[in-house]
């Protein structure tokens, strides 16, 4: 196939309004993609500024107050505007209905509303930059967040609104997966990306409302001084941390679970081998979702919470290692004796395996009570978090983006540039963040503007790494953007994958399929299908 199939969802209707008010889940996915890419760019620039400032001790390019605002905004933008909606709302919106053979999500209007709410919330959050940028850190801990003169209300209101967007997406996905699967597509025949999104959606609807209430209480505290977080009035600031982490710990699994789903797809497709331990991977997603609600107190080991609570939370935290380990071992076993090819998505998947494992194992250090007292609030935490979130979620997101880009736009990107960018990102990432493990274990506290001279070489090294990392992302977005319009046509199934989305034209038509999808094999039946393809006569 040498031309783009037409008509498709992109050229079915014309004009900007046909995009902004579309009910087509694919277009909404693209809208989300644009939104989160803008957020990623903003957050990325802020990150580069932070690294620039930290290259030497003392003031380089901004004063201390500005620095506090910049790292807060970096955290809030990356967490709430980019990484939480990234995979579910952009790639999930686009591919979930196609992968289960449906024509749309269950509630298309709610889906559109969720995007508009996302934009509205983002505007509030970004507006806080002008209204006196918040300097509390993205965690908004009381009592500082109730006393600081910056625009906490604007930012928290923005995050509150973004929460609704997240809830609506999750609600939509749960109902879609339950009610709109194609005939014959039973639960155990679902692609594992769908299982990942399902587990994510469960967390989104269970945890996000509590965040909403937390932020309402914080706003009430600021506006009316109701005093429930203020020790001078009989309140308790540590209670805020319980409120906050009941959402925000599960939220890091909102960020990682869809990424794990993508990795399950990529590993199987590019190892050309049936996924090993399908049910174990599927159920470990649900197990992670459940356990994520029982461990939030491990963020509070030095906050003054009771020792008994700390012990319980520490013990339960170790349990997360079990389902995560199950996943990693199943992926490795899938690779074993597979016919592995190294296209760009696979490079990101392998990066994920490497980096996420480091991120996960360092999490065990932090979950252990005694070591956490030493490592708490140091760069070790920063490095751990970025290994899981960037090394995990963002790698998976990039992998998914490269994997599905030809399906979304019908055109292929330049493989050479893509591999070069993947290499830059991998190398740059490790230079930036591995040094931070060392910095943290040596005692460099996080969020500090100034530091002792002895940390300078490692800080500088980390900053150099951030330039390589930033360059890698820049190159990736340039060739991806170019490919969306000018790339060579990709055809229906450039990877030889077996899930439903590869049976429809690229880009897909508005109704998703040109003919009703028929389930001929399970999503990872490469053993069966490859034999059929190689020996068609038998």
């Amino acid at each position, binding site marked *: 196939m040498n031309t783009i199939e037409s008509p498709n969802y992109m050229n079915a209707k014309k004009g900007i309004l046909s995009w902004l008010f579309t009910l087509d889940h694919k277009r909404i996915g693209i809208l989300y993609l644009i939104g989160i890419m803008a957020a990623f760019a903003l957050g990325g620039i802020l990150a580069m500024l932070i690294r620039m400032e930290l290259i030497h001790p003392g003031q380089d390019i901004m004063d201390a107050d500005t620095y506090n605002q910049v790292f807060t905004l970096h955290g809030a933008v990356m967490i709430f505007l980019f990484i939480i909606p990234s995979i579910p709302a952009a790639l999930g919106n686009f591919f979930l209905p196609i992968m289960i053979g449906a024509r749309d999500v269950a509630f298309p209007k709610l889906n559109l509303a969720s995007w508009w709410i996302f934009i509205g919330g983002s505007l509030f959050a970004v507006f806080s930059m002008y209204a006196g940028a918040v300097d509390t850190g993205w965690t908004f801990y009381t009592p500082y967040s109730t006393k600081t003169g910056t625009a906490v209300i604007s930012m928290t209101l923005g995050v509150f609104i973004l929460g609704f967007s997240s809830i609506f997406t999750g609600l939509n996905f749960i109902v879609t997966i339950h*009610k709109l699967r194609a005939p014959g597509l039973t639960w155990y025949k679902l692609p594992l990306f769908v299982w990942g999104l399902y587990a994510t959606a469960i967390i989104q609807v269970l945890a996000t409302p509590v965040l909403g209430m937390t932020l309402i209480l914080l706003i009430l505290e600021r506006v009316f001084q109701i005093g429930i977080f203020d020790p001078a009035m009989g309140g308790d600031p540590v209670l805020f941390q319980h409120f906050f982490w009941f959402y925000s710990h599960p939220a890091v699994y909102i960020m990682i679970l869809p990424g794990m789903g993508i990795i399950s797809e990529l590993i199987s497709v590019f190892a050309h081998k049936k996924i090993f331990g399908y049910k174990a991977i599927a159920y470990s997603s649900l197990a992670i979702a459940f356990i994520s609600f029982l461990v939030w107190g491990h963020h509070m080991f030095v906050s003054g919470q009771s020792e008994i609570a700390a012990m319980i939370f520490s013990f339960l935290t170790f349990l997360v290692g079990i389902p995560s380990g199950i996943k990693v071992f199943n992926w490795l076993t899938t690779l074993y004796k597979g016919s592995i090819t190294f296209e760009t998505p696979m490079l990101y998947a392998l990066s994920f395996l490497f980096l996420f494992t480091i991120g996960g194992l360092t999490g065990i250090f932090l979950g252990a009570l005694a070591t956490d007292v030493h490592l708490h609030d140091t760069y070790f935490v920063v490095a751990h978090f970025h290994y899981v979130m960037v090394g995990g979620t963002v790698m998976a997101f990039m992998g998914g983006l490269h994997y599905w880009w030809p399906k979304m736009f019908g055109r292929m990107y330049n493989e050479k540039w893509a591999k070069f960018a993947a290499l830059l990102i991998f190398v740059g990432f490790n230079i930036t963040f591995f040094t931070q493990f060392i910095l943290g274990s040596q005692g460099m506290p996080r969020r500090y503007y100034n530091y002792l001279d002895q940390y300078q070489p490692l800080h500088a090294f980390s900053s150099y790494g951030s330039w390589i990392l930033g360059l890698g992302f820049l190159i990736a977005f340039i060739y991806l953007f170019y490919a969306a319009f000018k790339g060579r046509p990709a055809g229906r199934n450039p990877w030889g994958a077996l899930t439903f989305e590869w049976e429809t034209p690229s880009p897909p038509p508005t109704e998703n399929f040109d003919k009703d999808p028929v389930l001929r094999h399970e999503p990872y039946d490469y053993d069966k299908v490859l034999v059929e393809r190689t020996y068609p006569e038998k």
Partner: protein
Amino acid sequence: MNHKEGHPEFLAHHFAEPEQQHESAKFGMWVFLLTEILLFGGLFLAYTVFRSWNPDMFYNAHLALDRTLGAVNTVVLITSSLTMALAIRSIQLNRKKHSMYFLIATLVFAAVFLVIKYFEYSHKIHLGQLPGKYYTYTGIEGNNPHIFFGIYFAMTGLHGVHVIAGMIIISWILIRASRNHFSHEYYTPMEMTGLYWHLVDLIWIFLFPLFYLIG
């Protein structure tokens, strides 16, 4: 939206048949109710923590609330829940007029609830039994009684907002019913509104003993 031949008007293009659409809507509504329960859950947490720390203050402060008004409001809200359920039963039996009467009754009871709540609130505002720094009342013994009123106003206030939202939705359903949008074949929006309204009632069933009937 191009509907296939033989599809009823209310059936959206991505559903195969009405039963699937109805079940999807109900499923989505239950998930939404789950988020509502957890939204209130945050305040239930605050209530539990502060009551466990200040049991005597909570007891003293709750005496400032009027049990009779609280009990009357409970009865009013339960009745409104009954009329809502009967409105749906009527439309299931295709008695459209009856259904509308019951919806109107539900609206009236909701309004009565809010009026009673208004009198309770204004009495407390008058006495200065208010949250946080606005608390000026001096007749309650114990540590920081303003916290009791902070949580009281937050919880009943959020509940009141839900009552108002429910009235708006019921009014919208009433208008649609008067335009003959619903029948025994299609009444999904009314049923969803009913579920929401029962949840509002259900939450009040817990708020009443927790605030008005402490020991």
